[in-house]
């Protein structure tokens, strides 16, 4: 057996009254990949954060390379050889690529306090080249590069420090297939070098492919460790949820079905430089999927349809607005006419973090609650409670801060907000991004219920299976242009769609 690099024993972590991790023990061996798997809020990020020095455990001991290990900060852990990659942006805008690569390490280039930029750029160049990023210019500001490139630069930074342990926390969720492949390559290389790797991922196929061992957690508690043949999506799913889950959790039917009536009509919609000449109708009771590569313009398309981006030309018409036919010119008009928008970037674009669940849920429906100009706290609370219960948000009460919720529960709050406004058209951008199977299943069921009620849903997704599993029709986009239309059928395969978008 390979050498044990890190042992974390009887780890506990409490945030106030919330027990995030309770008595979990794990160990990682050199040159192996350990997967941490569990639903949102099961404590997998918490335990890896403790290893990475983000915050100290409430109780428990960690032994690293045979010695007791108490990291005081992320920097401390990095110096010890533990690198932590997350799904959030880890680079700082406004600084150059090279400066980002050596963030906190500039001292090695300084003579009498003056950092030698020339040397810094040179060494950064070398590190970028070694990691297949020869097209990146170390002197350019980091924000000139896409999110994916930035993530890769961050990864290169981590690898340049010869880590003994590499923690990859849902990093692949935010990346395209190309980026993911690159991360898989890196994992293989590091494995060969003898680095211990910890992976957190919701993509169970990915976990199956990469991991030597998988540790399952549920509600902050250790459930089981799997290895070998036991590492397969079905077993993992069962252990995560603690009960059997039907083989499929998408729609059961395989026929395209919607009413004839059009609810939303998009005509010749163009935003110069991003997408061109988009034409489609959304019908009552239809789930219309849009698929493509992340940069194909589909995310911006949804924003434009909702009125958050001003189109260069073209129009978005709601056929049955409050006053008949209505152009969706801005977000206020859209929401007033009961159109809902669920953005891809939950934390930045849809949530008020340091704010109560209640205020998040009623944010869009105050017009419905007010009497004259007065909004009674009781009606707010009642509405919030009702919608939170309907979405089964796991919470102490509606006054709890949203930032303390797990990803899946946060998304439930976002959906609850739009249900509270009696929305009749839903625009969803990757509605299940970074969400565990339990909540995913719930969201799919809800979409199906909405469909039955005659509500139109326009959905962008980066997961082909989700599109095939849920949509009545799928429009594919490529380089900002409408490409093909697929109709729901049992024969439709992932390969068909991928062929259309690449």
């Amino acid at each position, binding site marked *: 057996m390979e050498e044990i690099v890190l042992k974390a024993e009887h780890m506990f972590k409490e945030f106030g009254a919330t027990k995030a991790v309770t008595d979990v023990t794990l160990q990682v061996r050199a040159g192996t990949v350990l997967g941490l798997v569990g639903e949102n809020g099961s404590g997998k990020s918490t335990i890896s954060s403790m290893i990475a020095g983000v915050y100290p455990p409430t109780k428990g001991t960690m032994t690293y390379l045979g010695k007791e290990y108490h990291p005081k900060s*992320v920097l401390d852990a990095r110096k010890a050889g533990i690198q932590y990659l997350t799904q959030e942006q880890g680079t700082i805008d406004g600084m150059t690529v090279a400066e980002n690569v050596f963030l906190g390490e500039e001292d090695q280039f300084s003579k009498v306090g003056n950092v030698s930029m020339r040397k810094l750029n040179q060494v950064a160049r070398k590190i970028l080249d070694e990691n297949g990023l020869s097209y990146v210019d170390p002197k350019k500001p980091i924000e000139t590069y896409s999110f994916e490139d930035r993530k890769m630069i961050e990864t290169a930074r981590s690898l340049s420090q010869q880590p003994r342990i590499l923690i990859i926390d849902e990093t692949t969720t935010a990346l395209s297939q190309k980026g993911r492949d690159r991360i898989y390559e890196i994992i293989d290389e590091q494995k060969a070098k003898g680095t211990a790797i910890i992976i957190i991922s919701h993509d169970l196929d990915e976990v199956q492919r990469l991991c030597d061992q998988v540790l399952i957690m549920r509600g902050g508690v250790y459930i089981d460790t799997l290895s070998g043949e036991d590492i397969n999506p079905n077993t993992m799913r069962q252990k995560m949820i603690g009960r059997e889950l039907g083989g499929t959790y998408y729609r059961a039917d395989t026929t395209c079905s919607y009413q004839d009536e059009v609810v939303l009509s998009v005509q010749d919609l163009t935003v110069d430089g991003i997408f061109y000449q988009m034409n489609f109708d959304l019908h009552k009771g239809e789930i219309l999927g849009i698929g493509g590569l992340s940069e194909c313009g589909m995310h911006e398309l949804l924003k434009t349809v909702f009125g958050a981006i001003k189109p260069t030309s073209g129009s978005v018409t709601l056929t049955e607005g409050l006053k008949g036919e209505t152009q969706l010119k801005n*977000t206020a008009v859209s929401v007033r006419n009961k159109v809902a928008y669920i953005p891809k970037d939950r934390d930045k674009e849809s*949530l*008020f973090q*340091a704010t109560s669940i209640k205020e998040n849920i009623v944010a869009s429906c105050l017009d419905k609650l007010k009497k004259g100009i007065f909004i009674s706290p009781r009606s707010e609370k009642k509405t919030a409670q009702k919608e939170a219960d309907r979405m089964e948000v796991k919470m102490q009460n509606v006054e709890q801060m949203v930032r303390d919720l797990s990803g899946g529960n946060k998304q439930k709050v976002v959906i609850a907000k739009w249900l509270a406004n009696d929305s009749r058209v839903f625009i969803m951008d990757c509605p299940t991004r970074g969400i565990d199977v339990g909540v995913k299943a719930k969201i799919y069921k809800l979409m199906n219920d909405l469909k039955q009620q005659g509500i139109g849903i326009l959905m962008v997704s980066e997961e082909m299976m989700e599109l095939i599993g849920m949509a009545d029709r799928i429009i594919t986009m490529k380089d900002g242009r409408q490409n093909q239309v697929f109709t729901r059928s049992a024969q439709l395969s992932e390969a068909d769609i991928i062929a259309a978008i690449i």
Partner: protein
Amino acid sequence: MNQRVRKLLSMDTLRKIIPLAGLIIVILVFSFTTNGLFLRWNNIQSLIMQAAITLVAATGTVFVMAHNNLDFSLGGACALSAVLSYLVTGGELIPFFIMCIVFGVMCGLISAFIHIGGRVPAFMAGLCIMFAGRGLAQTVSASKTMLMVGAAQFNQLWFFLVVLIVVFGACYFLFNYTKVGKYQKLIGTNPMATQLSGINVNKYKTLAFVICGVTLGIAACLTIVRSAAVNGNTGLNLETDVLLALSLGGISMQGGSATRIRSAIIGVMFYFILDNGLLLWGLDADYVDIVKAIFFLLTVTISIDRSQYSVIA
């Protein structure tokens, strides 16, 4: 038990109670150490009338701070409204009051316009209004005496109390129970999410400046009632008084959901009682400012919400 004590002593709770606790302590200390001077009716009366002007202006400013802007125009805008209003109405009492408020709103709209139209931080716009207003007031008052003898009839406690209660009551209602107030807090927390929730961010930001302008105009009226004349120093330092007082009252520096309108009342009382008590102690006015600065730093260090300053790595 242990957990309850820990919760009580947590930084979070401390942050919330420090302003009020500080106010109570200051009141108690001055009550016992000034030979009863502090508690004399005359003293309390002048304290209230002094504080009323700042409190009225501070109440409206809370709306602007809630959406994460600072209004630096107050002092200059106060002088500007008073002078312009005098020039327009010739010092006739009721029209003067009305025009004061109109010009106050105008100042607010200018700030909003520069901030939203020009995408400039509102405090920059405010600074410009402050200097321009002060300059204008000094220029005009150098060549013209603007007496408002008639205004002195209102220089009475009841008038100040009525204005105070009406303004604070109305603002309290607007801030906590209507869209105008609620949206300010949402904008301060996350402007992007606010926009994507279908709320017209620019409109509600502008409304905050309008409310701030109304209270500023009312504060300008009270200033004139107290001094019975418009001059170059009308409303001097109002902006710093308001901002310091709000900070003492524990207002959230980045706005957002943590913003409470009670910060205005607690902060302004704290600020003026401190001032008053220190003077009663016989401390030289220059030293009073130094002590105030130290107090200010202490309170803010303890009570500021740091959640948004935290940096990982």
